[in-house]
Protein backbone atom coordinates (compact mmCIF):
# COMPACT_ATOMS: atom_id res chain seq x y z
CA UNK A 1 0.00 0.00 0.00
CA UNK A 2 2.73 2.36 1.01
CA UNK A 3 4.79 1.63 -2.09
CA UNK A 4 1.84 2.13 -4.40
CA UNK A 5 1.22 5.49 -2.75
CA UNK A 6 4.86 6.41 -3.23
CA UNK A 7 4.72 5.34 -6.86
CA UNK A 8 1.56 7.35 -7.30
CA UNK A 9 3.13 10.37 -5.71
CA UNK A 10 6.24 10.01 -7.85
CA UNK A 11 4.13 9.69 -10.99
CA UNK A 12 2.08 12.69 -9.92
CA UNK A 13 5.15 14.85 -9.45
CA UNK A 14 6.64 13.61 -12.69
CA UNK A 15 3.43 14.54 -14.51
CA UNK A 16 3.07 17.84 -12.76
CA UNK A 17 6.65 18.59 -13.72
CA UNK A 18 6.84 20.96 -10.80
CA UNK A 19 8.98 18.81 -8.54
CA UNK A 20 12.52 20.17 -8.40
CA UNK A 21 15.29 17.76 -9.26
CA UNK A 22 16.74 15.94 -6.28
CA UNK A 23 19.23 18.09 -4.41
CA UNK A 24 18.19 21.30 -6.14
CA UNK A 25 18.44 24.21 -3.78
CA UNK A 26 15.79 26.90 -3.60
CA UNK A 27 16.83 30.40 -2.65
CA UNK A 28 14.95 33.69 -2.63
CA UNK A 29 15.67 36.70 -4.80
CA UNK A 30 15.71 40.27 -3.50
CA UNK A 31 11.93 40.49 -3.80
CA UNK A 32 11.55 37.32 -1.74
CA UNK A 33 10.42 35.20 -4.69
CA UNK A 34 11.58 31.58 -4.62
CA UNK A 35 14.20 30.63 -7.18
CA UNK A 36 15.58 27.17 -7.91
CA UNK A 37 19.36 27.37 -8.06
CA UNK A 38 20.65 25.85 -11.31
CA UNK A 39 22.96 22.82 -11.06
CA UNK A 40 25.60 24.36 -13.28
CA UNK A 41 26.34 27.70 -14.91
CA UNK A 42 23.43 28.67 -17.17
CA UNK A 43 24.39 28.80 -20.83
CA UNK A 44 21.95 31.45 -22.01
CA UNK A 45 21.68 34.35 -19.60
CA UNK A 46 19.55 37.42 -20.31
CA UNK A 47 20.68 40.52 -18.45
CA UNK A 48 18.06 43.20 -17.98
CA UNK A 49 20.34 46.01 -16.80
CA UNK A 50 23.78 47.41 -17.76
CA UNK A 51 25.29 46.93 -14.27
CA UNK A 52 24.26 43.27 -14.31
CA UNK A 53 25.83 42.86 -17.74
CA UNK A 54 29.08 44.41 -16.46
CA UNK A 55 29.17 42.07 -13.48
CA UNK A 56 28.46 39.04 -15.68
CA UNK A 57 31.34 39.96 -18.01
CA UNK A 58 33.60 40.67 -15.03
CA UNK A 59 32.86 37.13 -13.81
CA UNK A 60 34.00 35.76 -17.18
CA UNK A 61 30.44 34.94 -18.21
CA UNK A 62 30.52 37.04 -21.39
CA UNK A 63 30.02 34.06 -23.73
CA UNK A 64 27.03 32.99 -21.63
CA UNK A 65 25.17 36.29 -22.05
CA UNK A 66 22.46 35.70 -24.66
CA UNK A 67 20.66 39.02 -24.38
CA UNK A 68 21.20 42.47 -22.90
CA UNK A 69 19.50 45.88 -22.94
CA UNK A 70 20.27 48.56 -25.47
CA UNK A 71 22.15 50.41 -22.72
CA UNK A 72 24.58 47.54 -22.09
CA UNK A 73 27.71 48.93 -23.80
CA UNK A 74 30.42 47.97 -21.31
CA UNK A 75 32.69 46.09 -21.70
CA UNK A 76 32.80 46.74 -25.47
CA UNK A 77 32.22 43.03 -26.17
CA UNK A 78 28.78 43.45 -24.60
CA UNK A 79 27.74 45.54 -27.59
CA UNK A 80 27.71 42.42 -29.76
CA UNK A 81 25.10 40.72 -27.55
CA UNK A 82 21.55 40.64 -29.00
CA UNK A 83 19.40 43.50 -27.67
CA UNK A 84 16.21 42.86 -25.71
CA UNK A 85 15.01 46.50 -25.61
CA UNK A 86 15.45 48.99 -22.80
CA UNK A 87 15.22 48.96 -19.02
CA UNK A 88 11.55 49.88 -18.78
CA UNK A 89 10.58 48.60 -22.20
CA UNK A 90 12.20 45.20 -22.63
CA UNK A 91 10.50 43.12 -25.30
CA UNK A 92 8.96 39.97 -23.90
CA UNK A 93 8.84 38.26 -27.27
CA UNK A 94 12.54 38.83 -27.94
CA UNK A 95 13.47 37.56 -24.48
CA UNK A 96 11.34 34.47 -25.02
CA UNK A 97 12.86 33.86 -28.45
CA UNK A 98 16.35 33.85 -26.92
CA UNK A 99 15.29 30.81 -24.85
CA UNK A 100 17.17 31.94 -21.75
CA UNK A 101 17.88 29.54 -18.91
CA UNK A 102 18.38 32.50 -16.57
CA UNK A 103 16.99 36.03 -16.64
CA UNK A 104 18.65 38.46 -14.23
CA UNK A 105 16.54 41.54 -13.65
CA UNK A 106 16.61 44.44 -11.24
CA UNK A 107 14.08 46.51 -9.33
CA UNK A 108 14.02 49.24 -11.97
CA UNK A 109 12.53 46.88 -14.55
CA UNK A 110 8.73 47.04 -14.56
CA UNK A 111 7.54 44.38 -12.15
CA UNK A 112 4.57 43.55 -14.35
CA UNK A 113 6.88 42.61 -17.21
CA UNK A 114 8.98 40.44 -14.90
CA UNK A 115 5.84 38.70 -13.65
CA UNK A 116 4.77 38.06 -17.23
CA UNK A 117 8.19 36.51 -17.94
CA UNK A 118 7.80 34.28 -14.88
CA UNK A 119 4.35 33.26 -16.12
CA UNK A 120 6.03 32.05 -19.32
CA UNK A 121 8.12 29.74 -17.08
CA UNK A 122 11.33 31.68 -17.57
CA UNK A 123 13.60 31.58 -14.50
CA UNK A 124 13.69 35.23 -13.43
CA UNK A 125 15.95 36.38 -10.60
CA UNK A 126 15.33 39.95 -9.41
CA UNK A 127 18.02 42.01 -7.71
CA UNK A 128 17.71 45.20 -5.74
CA UNK A 129 19.92 48.24 -6.28
CA UNK A 130 21.83 49.03 -3.12
CA UNK A 131 22.30 52.50 -1.70
CA UNK A 132 26.01 52.22 -1.01
CA UNK A 133 29.24 50.46 -1.87
CA UNK A 134 28.64 47.99 0.96
CA UNK A 135 25.75 46.57 -1.05
CA UNK A 136 27.84 46.14 -4.20
CA UNK A 137 29.89 43.19 -2.96
CA UNK A 138 26.87 41.13 -1.86
CA UNK A 139 25.25 41.95 -5.23
CA UNK A 140 28.27 40.53 -7.06
CA UNK A 141 28.26 37.46 -4.83
CA UNK A 142 24.55 37.01 -5.40
CA UNK A 143 25.04 37.06 -9.18
CA UNK A 144 27.91 34.63 -8.66
CA UNK A 145 25.58 32.37 -6.71
CA UNK A 146 22.81 32.19 -9.33
CA UNK A 147 25.33 31.69 -12.12
CA UNK A 148 27.28 29.14 -10.07
CA UNK A 149 30.42 31.22 -10.23
CA UNK A 150 30.70 31.56 -6.48
CA UNK A 151 34.50 31.51 -6.22
CA UNK A 152 35.03 33.98 -9.09
CA UNK A 153 32.46 36.28 -7.50
CA UNK A 154 34.15 36.19 -4.08
CA UNK A 155 37.50 36.87 -5.73
CA UNK A 156 36.08 39.84 -7.66
CA UNK A 157 34.36 41.20 -4.56
CA UNK A 158 37.54 40.79 -2.53
CA UNK A 159 39.70 42.60 -5.08
CA UNK A 160 37.21 45.47 -5.33
CA UNK A 161 37.04 45.67 -1.56
CA UNK A 162 40.85 45.79 -1.41
CA UNK A 163 40.85 48.63 -3.93
CA UNK A 164 38.28 50.48 -1.85
CA UNK A 165 40.41 49.99 1.28
CA UNK A 166 43.50 51.32 -0.48
CA UNK A 167 41.62 54.53 -1.31
CA UNK A 168 40.36 54.69 2.24
CA UNK A 169 43.83 54.33 3.77
CA UNK A 170 45.35 56.84 1.32
CA UNK A 171 42.70 59.35 2.36
CA UNK A 172 43.17 58.80 6.06
CA UNK A 173 41.15 61.14 8.24
CA UNK A 174 39.70 64.07 6.33
CA UNK A 175 38.91 66.97 8.63
CA UNK A 176 37.63 69.68 6.33
CA UNK A 177 35.37 68.00 3.86
CA UNK A 178 34.74 69.75 0.53
CA UNK A 179 31.09 70.19 -0.36
CA UNK A 180 30.37 68.82 -3.80
CA UNK A 181 27.59 68.93 -6.34
CA UNK A 182 27.18 66.06 -8.76
CA UNK A 183 25.73 67.14 -12.08
CA UNK A 184 24.31 64.63 -14.51
CA UNK A 185 24.85 66.43 -17.81
CA UNK A 186 21.87 66.25 -20.10
CA UNK A 187 18.56 67.87 -19.38
CA UNK A 188 18.42 70.23 -16.44
CA UNK A 189 20.25 70.05 -13.15
CA UNK A 190 19.81 66.39 -12.29
CA UNK A 191 21.80 65.26 -9.30
CA UNK A 192 22.05 62.36 -6.88
CA UNK A 193 20.15 62.65 -3.60
CA UNK A 194 20.77 61.21 -0.17
CA UNK A 195 19.45 57.76 -1.03
CA UNK A 196 21.71 57.20 -3.99
CA UNK A 197 24.81 55.01 -3.94
CA UNK A 198 26.76 57.97 -5.34
CA UNK A 199 25.99 59.83 -2.13
CA UNK A 200 27.75 57.01 -0.29
CA UNK A 201 30.66 57.17 -2.74
CA UNK A 202 30.96 60.94 -2.11
CA UNK A 203 31.09 60.36 1.66
CA UNK A 204 33.76 57.68 1.20
CA UNK A 205 35.75 60.08 -1.01
CA UNK A 206 35.96 62.43 1.98
CA UNK A 207 33.36 64.94 0.85
CA UNK A 208 29.80 66.07 1.45
CA UNK A 209 27.03 65.95 -1.15
CA UNK A 210 25.10 69.21 -1.05
CA UNK A 211 22.00 67.36 -2.32
CA UNK A 212 22.21 64.77 0.47
CA UNK A 213 19.17 66.21 2.33
CA UNK A 214 16.97 65.21 -0.62
CA UNK A 215 15.47 61.84 0.31
CA UNK A 216 15.71 60.50 -3.25
CA UNK A 217 18.02 58.61 -5.56
CA UNK A 218 18.05 61.01 -8.50
CA UNK A 219 16.45 64.42 -8.31
CA UNK A 220 16.23 67.76 -10.07
CA UNK A 221 18.07 70.44 -8.12
CA UNK A 222 17.30 74.12 -8.40
CA UNK A 223 19.89 76.69 -9.38
CA UNK A 224 18.93 78.84 -6.45
CA UNK A 225 19.83 76.06 -4.05
CA UNK A 226 23.22 75.54 -5.70
CA UNK A 227 23.99 79.24 -5.39
CA UNK A 228 22.92 79.12 -1.73
CA UNK A 229 24.92 75.94 -0.99
CA UNK A 230 27.96 77.25 -2.92
CA UNK A 231 29.72 73.91 -3.52
CA UNK A 232 33.53 73.69 -3.47
CA UNK A 233 33.62 71.24 -6.34
CA UNK A 234 31.34 70.03 -9.10
CA UNK A 235 31.50 66.56 -10.65
CA UNK A 236 30.01 66.38 -14.08
CA UNK A 237 28.78 62.99 -15.17
CA UNK A 238 29.34 63.15 -18.91
CA UNK A 239 29.67 60.59 -21.67
CA UNK A 240 32.74 62.15 -23.30
CA UNK A 241 35.26 64.94 -22.83
CA UNK A 242 33.45 66.87 -25.55
CA UNK A 243 30.25 66.71 -23.48
CA UNK A 244 32.28 67.68 -20.42
CA UNK A 245 33.56 70.79 -22.21
CA UNK A 246 30.00 71.70 -23.16
CA UNK A 247 28.83 71.11 -19.61
CA UNK A 248 31.50 73.48 -18.22
CA UNK A 249 30.44 76.20 -20.65
CA UNK A 250 26.81 75.60 -19.76
CA UNK A 251 27.42 75.79 -16.01
CA UNK A 252 29.26 79.11 -16.22
CA UNK A 253 27.02 80.55 -18.93
CA UNK A 254 23.40 79.53 -19.29
CA UNK A 255 23.08 78.03 -15.82
CA UNK A 256 24.52 81.24 -14.29
CA UNK A 257 26.57 79.34 -11.74
CA UNK A 258 29.83 81.12 -12.59
CA UNK A 259 29.88 82.82 -9.20
CA UNK A 260 29.92 79.60 -7.18
CA UNK A 261 33.26 78.69 -5.61
CA UNK A 262 33.55 75.48 -7.63
CA UNK A 263 33.00 77.04 -11.05
CA UNK A 264 34.95 80.22 -10.28
CA UNK A 265 38.00 78.28 -9.06
CA UNK A 266 37.77 75.74 -11.87
CA UNK A 267 37.17 72.80 -9.54
CA UNK A 268 34.87 71.16 -12.05
CA UNK A 269 35.76 67.53 -12.72
CA UNK A 270 34.68 64.92 -15.21
CA UNK A 271 33.35 61.58 -14.05
CA UNK A 272 32.61 58.85 -16.57
CA UNK A 273 28.82 58.89 -16.63
CA UNK A 274 28.77 55.39 -17.96
CA UNK A 275 30.66 54.06 -14.92
CA UNK A 276 29.17 56.33 -12.26
CA UNK A 277 25.54 55.80 -13.18
CA UNK A 278 25.72 52.02 -12.85
CA UNK A 279 25.82 50.06 -9.66
CA UNK A 280 28.64 47.85 -10.89
CA UNK A 281 32.33 47.01 -10.42
CA UNK A 282 33.57 50.28 -11.92
CA UNK A 283 32.01 52.22 -9.05
CA UNK A 284 35.17 51.61 -7.01
CA UNK A 285 37.21 53.34 -9.72
CA UNK A 286 34.72 56.22 -9.60
CA UNK A 287 35.43 56.44 -5.87
CA UNK A 288 39.18 56.50 -6.54
CA UNK A 289 38.81 59.19 -9.22
CA UNK A 290 36.64 61.31 -6.96
CA UNK A 291 38.99 61.00 -3.97
CA UNK A 292 42.01 61.84 -6.14
CA UNK A 293 40.31 64.92 -7.62
CA UNK A 294 39.24 66.25 -4.22
CA UNK A 295 42.34 65.38 -2.21
CA UNK A 296 45.24 65.23 -4.71
CA UNK A 297 47.81 65.79 -1.94
CA UNK A 298 46.96 62.48 -0.35
CA UNK A 299 47.57 60.59 -3.58
CA UNK A 300 51.05 61.96 -4.18
CA UNK A 301 49.91 64.84 -6.33
CA UNK A 302 50.25 68.54 -5.71
CA UNK A 303 47.47 70.20 -3.77
Amino acid at each position, binding site marked *: MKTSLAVFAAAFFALAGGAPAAGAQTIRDDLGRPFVLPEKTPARIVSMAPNITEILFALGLGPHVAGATRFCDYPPEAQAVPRI*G*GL*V*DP*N*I*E*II*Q*SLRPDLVIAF*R*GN*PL*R*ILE*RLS*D*LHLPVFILDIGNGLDALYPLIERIGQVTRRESEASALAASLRARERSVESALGVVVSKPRVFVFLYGQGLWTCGGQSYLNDVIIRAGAVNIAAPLP*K*KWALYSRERIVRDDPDAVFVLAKSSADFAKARVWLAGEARLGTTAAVASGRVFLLDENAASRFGPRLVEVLAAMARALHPERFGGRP
Partner: protein
Amino acid sequence: MRDRARLRLVMALLVLLAAAGFLVSLLVGPARTSVGDLWRFLAGKDREQAVIFLDLRLARAVVAFLVGASLALSGAILQGYFQNPMADPFVVGVSSGASLGAVLAIALGLRASFLGFSGQSLLAFASGLGIVALVYALSQRKGLFKIETLLLTGIAAGALASALTSFFLFMRSDSFDQAVFWLLGSFQLAGWTEAWAVGPWLAVCLAASLWLAKDMNLLVLGDEAAQALGCPVRPVRRAFLVVASLLASLSVSVSGIIGFVGLVVPHGVRLLIGPDHRRLFPCAALAGGTFLLYSDLVARTILPSELPIGVITAAVGAPFFLYLLHQKR
Protein backbone atom coordinates in the same frame (compact mmCIF):
# COMPACT_ATOMS: atom_id res chain seq x y z
CA MET B 1 -33.89 44.09 -48.82
CA ARG B 2 -30.94 46.15 -50.04
CA ASP B 3 -30.28 46.99 -46.41
CA ARG B 4 -29.95 43.33 -45.59
CA ALA B 5 -27.49 42.72 -48.39
CA ARG B 6 -25.47 45.70 -47.29
CA LEU B 7 -25.39 44.47 -43.70
CA ARG B 8 -24.22 41.05 -44.86
CA LEU B 9 -21.54 42.58 -47.01
CA VAL B 10 -20.26 44.74 -44.16
CA MET B 11 -20.28 41.80 -41.74
CA ALA B 12 -18.46 39.55 -44.22
CA LEU B 13 -15.84 42.20 -44.88
CA LEU B 14 -15.28 42.74 -41.16
CA VAL B 15 -14.89 39.03 -40.50
CA LEU B 16 -12.41 38.76 -43.36
CA LEU B 17 -10.44 41.78 -42.13
CA ALA B 18 -10.38 40.39 -38.59
CA ALA B 19 -9.20 36.98 -39.80
CA ALA B 20 -6.45 38.61 -41.85
CA GLY B 21 -5.51 40.73 -38.84
CA PHE B 22 -5.15 37.67 -36.63
CA LEU B 23 -3.00 35.95 -39.24
CA VAL B 24 -0.69 38.95 -39.63
CA SER B 25 -0.51 39.31 -35.83
CA LEU B 26 0.71 35.74 -35.61
CA LEU B 27 3.38 36.28 -38.23
CA VAL B 28 4.79 39.68 -37.29
CA GLY B 29 6.95 40.38 -34.27
CA PRO B 30 10.46 41.17 -33.15
CA ALA B 31 11.40 37.48 -33.06
CA ARG B 32 11.77 36.38 -36.67
CA THR B 33 9.17 33.87 -37.78
CA SER B 34 8.23 32.90 -41.31
CA VAL B 35 5.01 31.61 -42.85
CA GLY B 36 6.78 28.23 -42.92
CA ASP B 37 7.36 28.36 -39.16
CA LEU B 38 3.69 29.09 -38.57
CA TRP B 39 2.65 26.31 -40.93
CA ARG B 40 4.95 23.77 -39.25
CA PHE B 41 3.61 24.93 -35.89
CA LEU B 42 -0.03 24.61 -36.99
CA ALA B 43 0.68 21.19 -38.48
CA GLY B 44 1.96 20.18 -35.07
CA LYS B 45 5.42 19.30 -36.32
CA ASP B 46 7.30 22.02 -34.53
CA ARG B 47 6.34 23.09 -31.01
CA GLU B 48 9.53 25.14 -30.60
CA GLN B 49 7.72 28.42 -31.21
CA ALA B 50 4.57 27.50 -29.27
CA VAL B 51 5.10 30.14 -26.59
CA ILE B 52 5.70 32.90 -29.12
CA PHE B 53 2.76 31.96 -31.34
CA LEU B 54 0.21 31.06 -28.69
CA ASP B 55 1.07 32.73 -25.39
CA LEU B 56 2.50 35.94 -26.77
CA ARG B 57 1.12 36.78 -30.19
CA LEU B 58 -2.23 35.01 -30.30
CA ALA B 59 -3.14 35.86 -26.71
CA ARG B 60 -2.25 39.46 -27.32
CA ALA B 61 -4.26 39.64 -30.54
CA VAL B 62 -7.25 38.03 -28.84
CA VAL B 63 -7.14 40.47 -25.94
CA ALA B 64 -6.78 43.44 -28.30
CA PHE B 65 -9.79 42.18 -30.26
CA LEU B 66 -11.91 41.62 -27.14
CA VAL B 67 -11.02 45.01 -25.66
CA GLY B 68 -11.73 46.75 -28.96
CA ALA B 69 -15.09 45.00 -29.19
CA SER B 70 -15.93 45.95 -25.59
CA LEU B 71 -14.97 49.59 -26.04
CA ALA B 72 -16.87 49.94 -29.31
CA LEU B 73 -19.96 48.26 -27.87
CA SER B 74 -19.72 50.47 -24.80
CA GLY B 75 -19.45 53.52 -27.07
CA ALA B 76 -22.40 52.41 -29.19
CA ILE B 77 -24.51 52.03 -26.04
CA LEU B 78 -23.44 55.39 -24.60
CA GLN B 79 -24.13 57.16 -27.89
CA GLY B 80 -27.65 55.76 -27.90
CA TYR B 81 -28.04 56.43 -24.21
CA PHE B 82 -27.06 60.08 -24.41
CA GLN B 83 -28.69 60.39 -27.87
CA ASN B 84 -25.45 61.89 -28.96
CA PRO B 85 -22.80 60.62 -31.37
CA MET B 86 -20.05 62.34 -29.38
CA ALA B 87 -20.41 60.14 -26.35
CA ASP B 88 -17.91 57.35 -25.74
CA PRO B 89 -16.37 55.81 -22.63
CA PHE B 90 -13.31 58.03 -22.97
CA VAL B 91 -15.11 61.31 -23.63
CA VAL B 92 -17.75 60.69 -20.96
CA GLY B 93 -14.99 59.93 -18.46
CA VAL B 94 -15.76 56.27 -17.70
CA SER B 95 -12.32 55.15 -18.89
CA SER B 96 -10.48 57.65 -16.72
CA GLY B 97 -12.70 56.78 -13.78
CA ALA B 98 -12.06 53.07 -14.24
CA SER B 99 -8.36 53.70 -14.54
CA LEU B 100 -8.42 55.63 -11.26
CA GLY B 101 -10.22 52.71 -9.59
CA ALA B 102 -7.68 50.20 -10.89
CA VAL B 103 -4.72 52.30 -9.77
CA LEU B 104 -6.35 52.86 -6.40
CA ALA B 105 -6.80 49.10 -5.99
CA ILE B 106 -3.10 48.62 -6.73
CA ALA B 107 -2.10 51.40 -4.32
CA LEU B 108 -4.26 49.87 -1.60
CA GLY B 109 -2.87 46.42 -2.36
CA LEU B 110 -6.35 45.01 -2.93
CA ARG B 111 -6.02 41.35 -3.80
CA ALA B 112 -9.50 40.03 -3.08
CA SER B 113 -11.74 38.78 -5.85
CA PHE B 114 -15.49 38.38 -6.17
CA LEU B 115 -17.52 36.50 -8.78
CA GLY B 116 -14.44 36.06 -10.93
CA PHE B 117 -13.60 39.76 -10.84
CA SER B 118 -10.31 40.84 -9.35
CA GLY B 119 -10.41 43.60 -6.76
CA GLN B 120 -8.79 45.75 -9.40
CA SER B 121 -11.59 45.25 -11.95
CA LEU B 122 -14.25 45.67 -9.27
CA LEU B 123 -12.93 49.01 -8.10
CA ALA B 124 -12.41 50.01 -11.75
CA PHE B 125 -16.05 49.14 -12.42
CA ALA B 126 -17.29 50.98 -9.35
CA SER B 127 -15.44 54.19 -10.11
CA GLY B 128 -16.25 53.98 -13.84
CA LEU B 129 -19.95 53.64 -13.00
CA GLY B 130 -19.61 56.46 -10.48
CA ILE B 131 -18.24 58.81 -13.11
CA VAL B 132 -21.03 58.07 -15.64
CA ALA B 133 -23.63 58.55 -12.94
CA LEU B 134 -22.03 61.86 -12.03
CA VAL B 135 -21.83 63.02 -15.64
CA TYR B 136 -25.43 61.89 -16.17
CA ALA B 137 -26.68 63.78 -13.14
CA LEU B 138 -24.74 66.94 -13.93
CA SER B 139 -25.47 67.15 -17.64
CA GLN B 140 -29.21 66.53 -17.47
CA ARG B 141 -31.42 69.60 -17.67
CA LYS B 142 -35.17 68.92 -17.53
CA GLY B 143 -34.72 65.46 -18.99
CA LEU B 144 -32.61 66.74 -21.88
CA PHE B 145 -28.92 66.49 -22.52
CA LYS B 146 -27.12 69.48 -23.91
CA ILE B 147 -24.11 68.41 -25.96
CA GLU B 148 -21.85 71.07 -24.50
CA THR B 149 -22.73 70.25 -20.89
CA LEU B 150 -22.26 66.54 -21.50
CA LEU B 151 -18.87 66.96 -23.14
CA LEU B 152 -17.59 69.51 -20.66
CA THR B 153 -18.75 67.53 -17.64
CA GLY B 154 -17.18 64.41 -19.08
CA ILE B 155 -13.91 66.18 -19.81
CA ALA B 156 -13.80 67.75 -16.34
CA ALA B 157 -14.62 64.48 -14.56
CA GLY B 158 -12.12 62.60 -16.74
CA ALA B 159 -9.38 65.15 -16.13
CA LEU B 160 -9.96 65.00 -12.38
CA ALA B 161 -9.81 61.20 -12.44
CA SER B 162 -6.61 61.29 -14.55
CA ALA B 163 -5.03 63.78 -12.16
CA LEU B 164 -5.81 61.55 -9.19
CA THR B 165 -4.49 58.54 -11.12
CA SER B 166 -1.21 60.35 -11.82
CA PHE B 167 -1.04 61.42 -8.18
CA PHE B 168 -1.33 57.85 -6.89
CA LEU B 169 1.19 56.63 -9.46
CA PHE B 170 3.79 59.29 -8.73
CA MET B 171 3.46 58.76 -4.98
CA ARG B 172 5.44 55.64 -5.76
CA SER B 173 8.57 56.77 -7.53
CA ASP B 174 9.23 53.53 -9.40
CA SER B 175 6.09 53.53 -11.47
CA PHE B 176 6.72 55.67 -14.53
CA ASP B 177 6.01 52.76 -16.84
CA GLN B 178 2.80 52.14 -14.92
CA ALA B 179 1.75 55.75 -15.48
CA VAL B 180 2.21 55.31 -19.22
CA PHE B 181 0.23 52.08 -19.07
CA TRP B 182 -2.72 53.49 -17.12
CA LEU B 183 -2.91 56.76 -19.03
CA LEU B 184 -2.21 55.60 -22.61
CA GLY B 185 -2.86 51.86 -22.62
CA SER B 186 -0.85 48.88 -23.82
CA PHE B 187 -1.30 45.24 -24.69
CA GLN B 188 2.32 44.42 -24.05
CA LEU B 189 1.48 42.25 -21.05
CA ALA B 190 -1.75 40.79 -22.38
CA GLY B 191 -2.05 37.04 -21.97
CA TRP B 192 -4.72 34.39 -21.67
CA THR B 193 -5.64 35.48 -18.12
CA GLU B 194 -6.70 38.85 -19.51
CA ALA B 195 -8.58 37.20 -22.36
CA TRP B 196 -10.57 35.13 -19.86
CA ALA B 197 -11.22 38.19 -17.72
CA VAL B 198 -12.86 40.05 -20.61
CA GLY B 199 -14.20 37.40 -23.02
CA PRO B 200 -17.08 35.89 -21.02
CA TRP B 201 -18.32 39.27 -19.80
CA LEU B 202 -18.20 40.67 -23.30
CA ALA B 203 -20.42 37.77 -24.38
CA VAL B 204 -22.87 38.45 -21.55
CA CYS B 205 -22.95 42.18 -22.23
CA LEU B 206 -23.36 41.68 -25.97
CA ALA B 207 -26.28 39.30 -25.35
CA ALA B 208 -27.88 41.74 -22.90
CA SER B 209 -27.53 44.69 -25.25
CA LEU B 210 -28.95 42.70 -28.16
CA TRP B 211 -31.89 41.72 -25.99
CA LEU B 212 -32.48 45.38 -25.11
CA ALA B 213 -31.57 46.78 -28.53
CA LYS B 214 -35.22 47.29 -29.50
CA ASP B 215 -35.75 49.38 -26.38
CA MET B 216 -32.68 51.42 -27.23
CA ASN B 217 -34.26 52.16 -30.62
CA LEU B 218 -37.28 53.53 -28.74
CA LEU B 219 -35.18 55.52 -26.25
CA VAL B 220 -33.73 57.47 -29.14
CA LEU B 221 -37.22 58.90 -29.76
CA GLY B 222 -37.14 60.47 -26.31
CA ASP B 223 -38.01 59.03 -22.91
CA GLU B 224 -41.69 60.02 -22.97
CA ALA B 225 -42.30 58.64 -26.44
CA ALA B 226 -40.47 55.44 -25.49
CA GLN B 227 -42.57 55.05 -22.34
CA ALA B 228 -45.74 55.56 -24.38
CA LEU B 229 -44.59 52.86 -26.81
CA GLY B 230 -44.23 50.37 -23.98
CA CYS B 231 -40.55 50.61 -23.12
CA PRO B 232 -39.80 50.48 -19.37
CA VAL B 233 -37.54 53.48 -19.62
CA ARG B 234 -35.90 53.63 -16.20
CA PRO B 235 -34.85 49.98 -15.80
CA VAL B 236 -33.67 49.86 -19.41
CA ARG B 237 -31.61 53.00 -18.96
CA ARG B 238 -30.12 51.67 -15.77
CA ALA B 239 -29.26 48.33 -17.39
CA PHE B 240 -27.54 50.04 -20.32
CA LEU B 241 -25.55 52.28 -18.02
CA VAL B 242 -24.29 49.27 -16.05
CA VAL B 243 -23.45 47.31 -19.21
CA ALA B 244 -21.58 50.21 -20.81
CA SER B 245 -19.60 50.91 -17.64
CA LEU B 246 -18.84 47.24 -17.11
CA LEU B 247 -17.47 46.88 -20.65
CA ALA B 248 -15.34 50.00 -20.45
CA SER B 249 -14.06 49.25 -16.94
CA LEU B 250 -13.08 45.68 -17.77
CA SER B 251 -11.24 46.92 -20.83
CA VAL B 252 -9.39 49.52 -18.81
CA SER B 253 -8.47 47.07 -16.07
CA VAL B 254 -6.67 44.79 -18.55
CA SER B 255 -5.18 47.29 -20.97
CA GLY B 256 -5.25 50.78 -19.47
CA ILE B 257 -7.04 53.73 -21.06
CA ILE B 258 -7.46 53.46 -24.79
CA GLY B 259 -9.27 56.46 -26.13
CA PHE B 260 -11.46 57.14 -29.16
CA VAL B 261 -12.22 53.50 -30.11
CA GLY B 262 -15.66 53.81 -28.58
CA LEU B 263 -16.22 57.06 -30.42
CA VAL B 264 -14.95 56.45 -33.92
CA VAL B 265 -16.02 52.86 -34.45
CA PRO B 266 -19.75 53.00 -33.60
CA HIS B 267 -20.05 56.22 -35.52
CA GLY B 268 -18.39 54.81 -38.60
CA VAL B 269 -20.48 51.67 -38.40
CA ARG B 270 -23.66 53.75 -38.08
CA LEU B 271 -22.73 55.58 -41.29
CA LEU B 272 -22.34 52.21 -43.04
CA ILE B 273 -25.36 50.25 -41.85
CA GLY B 274 -27.74 52.78 -40.32
CA PRO B 275 -28.88 53.53 -36.79
CA ASP B 276 -30.82 50.34 -35.93
CA HIS B 277 -29.26 49.21 -32.67
CA ARG B 278 -30.08 45.55 -33.30
CA ARG B 279 -27.50 45.66 -36.08
CA LEU B 280 -25.33 48.42 -34.74
CA PHE B 281 -24.35 46.62 -31.52
CA PRO B 282 -22.91 43.41 -33.03
CA CYS B 283 -21.37 45.24 -35.99
CA ALA B 284 -19.74 47.85 -33.76
CA ALA B 285 -18.29 45.11 -31.55
CA LEU B 286 -16.85 43.28 -34.54
CA ALA B 287 -15.50 46.48 -36.10
CA GLY B 288 -14.07 47.70 -32.78
CA GLY B 289 -12.23 44.44 -32.25
CA THR B 290 -10.81 44.58 -35.76
CA PHE B 291 -9.82 48.24 -35.39
CA LEU B 292 -7.93 47.64 -32.15
CA LEU B 293 -6.33 44.47 -33.51
CA TYR B 294 -4.79 46.52 -36.33
CA SER B 295 -3.97 49.45 -34.03
CA ASP B 296 -2.04 47.12 -31.76
CA LEU B 297 -0.25 45.63 -34.74
CA VAL B 298 0.89 49.14 -35.70
CA ALA B 299 1.76 50.03 -32.10
CA ARG B 300 4.06 47.07 -31.70
CA THR B 301 5.74 47.09 -35.10
CA ILE B 302 6.07 50.68 -36.29
CA LEU B 303 9.09 51.46 -34.09
CA PRO B 304 11.85 49.27 -32.63
CA SER B 305 10.34 49.81 -29.16
CA GLU B 306 6.61 49.65 -28.58
CA LEU B 307 4.32 52.66 -28.69
CA PRO B 308 1.47 52.98 -26.19
CA ILE B 309 -1.62 52.00 -28.18
CA GLY B 310 -3.48 55.12 -27.03
CA VAL B 311 -1.09 57.09 -29.24
CA ILE B 312 -2.32 55.23 -32.33
CA THR B 313 -6.03 55.34 -31.52
CA ALA B 314 -5.83 59.02 -30.61
CA ALA B 315 -3.94 59.79 -33.83
CA VAL B 316 -6.86 58.24 -35.75
CA GLY B 317 -9.63 59.26 -33.40
CA ALA B 318 -8.90 62.86 -32.54
CA PRO B 319 -9.10 64.17 -36.13
CA PHE B 320 -12.34 62.24 -36.53
CA PHE B 321 -13.65 63.81 -33.32
CA LEU B 322 -12.81 67.28 -34.64
CA TYR B 323 -14.55 66.44 -37.89
CA LEU B 324 -17.69 65.45 -35.99
CA LEU B 325 -17.56 68.61 -33.90
CA HIS B 326 -17.21 70.68 -37.07
CA GLN B 327 -20.18 68.93 -38.69
CA LYS B 328 -22.34 69.72 -35.68
CA ARG B 329 -21.86 73.44 -36.08
